[in-house]
């Protein structure tokens, strides 16, 4: 606490501007995660500092702080299918689609979410799984409610999770945490939103982004397959013909 007071005092002395509440400055250890041929996952460090309030003494000293970090992967459509036995054969019989939902969803917090803020506040800021994947709406209009299964399957793949004790304060204002990205992370743009809470109130939220993308020949092939499918198709056939021809020449069957 003394650090905050001191920092506030110094800022108070140095700056004379409009009143500003506490702000968070957040940063990531990597702006880009490259998936190359031997990618086995990656630990991403997310860290930042709560900057003191400036200009208005009534806004200062609002700590102790709580930090919640929500990481969302690129949008996707998830389809959960259920197999049931019919006439002795297990076949897909029911399904539910979750369109325009994150392909990756992780919540990291410095304390139990229930102690940080009310469920309404968390839901309003899209911090809970249910508020992002729209469980209530789906349960109301569909015969199936597979959102629980979706959550279980995503978390089994390491693509969903909540860790309420992942964010650590190294000083009263400096926080840091690590995010585990498994080997099967979808590529695309990720949004990291850091929420600063104090006494159950949201003070500020701050977004930063990072990119996950395939690198090298994998990236080239993936792009070619989706952007130039004709050329990719012709090249695949030619490669197969050439490999076969080379085989028969090399071994002189």
């Amino acid at each position, binding site marked *: 606490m003394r650090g905050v007071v001191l920092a506030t005092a110094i800022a108070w002395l140095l700056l004379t501007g409009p009143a500003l509440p506490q702000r968070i400055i957040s940063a990531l250890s990597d702006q880009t995660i490259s998936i190359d041929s031997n990618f086995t996952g990656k630990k991403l460090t997310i860290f930042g500092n709560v900057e003191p309030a400036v200009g208005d003494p009534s806004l200062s000293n609002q700590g102790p702080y709580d930090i919640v970090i929500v990481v969302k992967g690129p949008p996707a459509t998830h389809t959960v299918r259920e197999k049931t036995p019919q006439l002795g*054969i*297990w076949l897909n019989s029911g399904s539910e689609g979750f369109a325009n939902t994150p*392909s990756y969803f992780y919540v990291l917090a410095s304390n139990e979410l229930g102690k940080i803020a009310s469920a309404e506040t968390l839901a309003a800021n899209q911090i809970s799984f249910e508020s992002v994947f729209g469980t209530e709406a789906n349960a109301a209009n569909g015969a199936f409610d597979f959102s629980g299964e979706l959550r279980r399957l995503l978390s089994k793949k390491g693509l969903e999770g909540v860790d309420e004790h992942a964010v650590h304060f190294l000083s009263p204002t400096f926080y840091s945490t690590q995010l585990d990205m498994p080997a099967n992370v979808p590529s695309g743009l990720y949004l990291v939103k850091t929420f600063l809470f104090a006494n159950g109130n949201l003070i500020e939220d701050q977004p930063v982004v990072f990119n996950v993308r395939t690198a090298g020949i994998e990236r080239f092939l993936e792009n070619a397959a989706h952007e130039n499918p004709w050329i990719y198709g012709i090249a695949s056939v030619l490669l197969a013909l050439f490999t076969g021809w080379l085989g028969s020449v090399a071994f002189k069957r």
Partner: protein
Amino acid sequence: MQIYLPIAELSVNLFFLIGTGAVVGFLSGLFGVGGGFLITPLLIFNGIPSSVAVASVTAQVVAASTSGAQSYYRRGAIDFQLAAFLISGGLVGSFLGVSTFNALNSAGQLDLVISLSYFFFLGGVGSLMLVESVRSLLRQRKGVVRPVHLPGQHSWVQLLPFRVRFKKSKLYISVIPVMGIGLAIGYLGSLLGIGGGFILVPALVYILRVPGNVVIGTSLLQVLAIMASTTFLYAINSQNVDIMLAFCLMVGSVAGAQFGAAAGQKLRGEQLRALLGLIVLAVALRFAYSLVVAPNDPFTLITKLGLV
């Protein structure tokens, strides 16, 4: 050593892929078949999505049949005229097969249809092969020598119109059954990720009476053309040809086939067919198992990136 497959979007052991290719290549050289009907199931059972497995194996079959077709071409053992009619039917079949595949995939029933088709199809063919070869092995043991007996053409084949003279095969037959066979093989092959040589050869021999000296070369050429067109169709329609996967399989299988062919000369035809029948049956039973036994997790998740 792990290798990342860009279209399947997962990492697989490189030696597993090349090893699978080599083992199947060995078997295909041994039995004179393409091996697609073994590779596709092996990939599916090892966690490669069936949509990617089928499409990528078609590219592998192109390589395997190119190798084979070339050696038959050098010996002049291909009836190009017959192949042209087979292929024209087969191209229609492969187009229909790819469309069916895509429709099933979006309906979520692709795995079911693939498992059922493999079960019935391989189960039937495997049993026939096994019964037929065991019978002839028993006959030989008893010392009964029966001449290889090919009766005259079936009457219904003889009666069909649009007859064409195939000089190399010394046949004067209607093109309807020729194109029909091509279409059926093209359809099944593209849907199931198999070349179909192991059905095409008996069909050419027993239905069309194509002579033995050109039947394998001609069938290899048909498989080559149909699988090339199927690879291309998958690449542009569903974009699920994983060339990295296909290439690893090709390298293994093209090399393995050479050793298989050498080993095959030491075994008798009936023994080979009995052995092949057993393998085909085993694959069919494996599919039956996956259909009948309760899955570990009845729920599956498919994620497709992008906004709708």
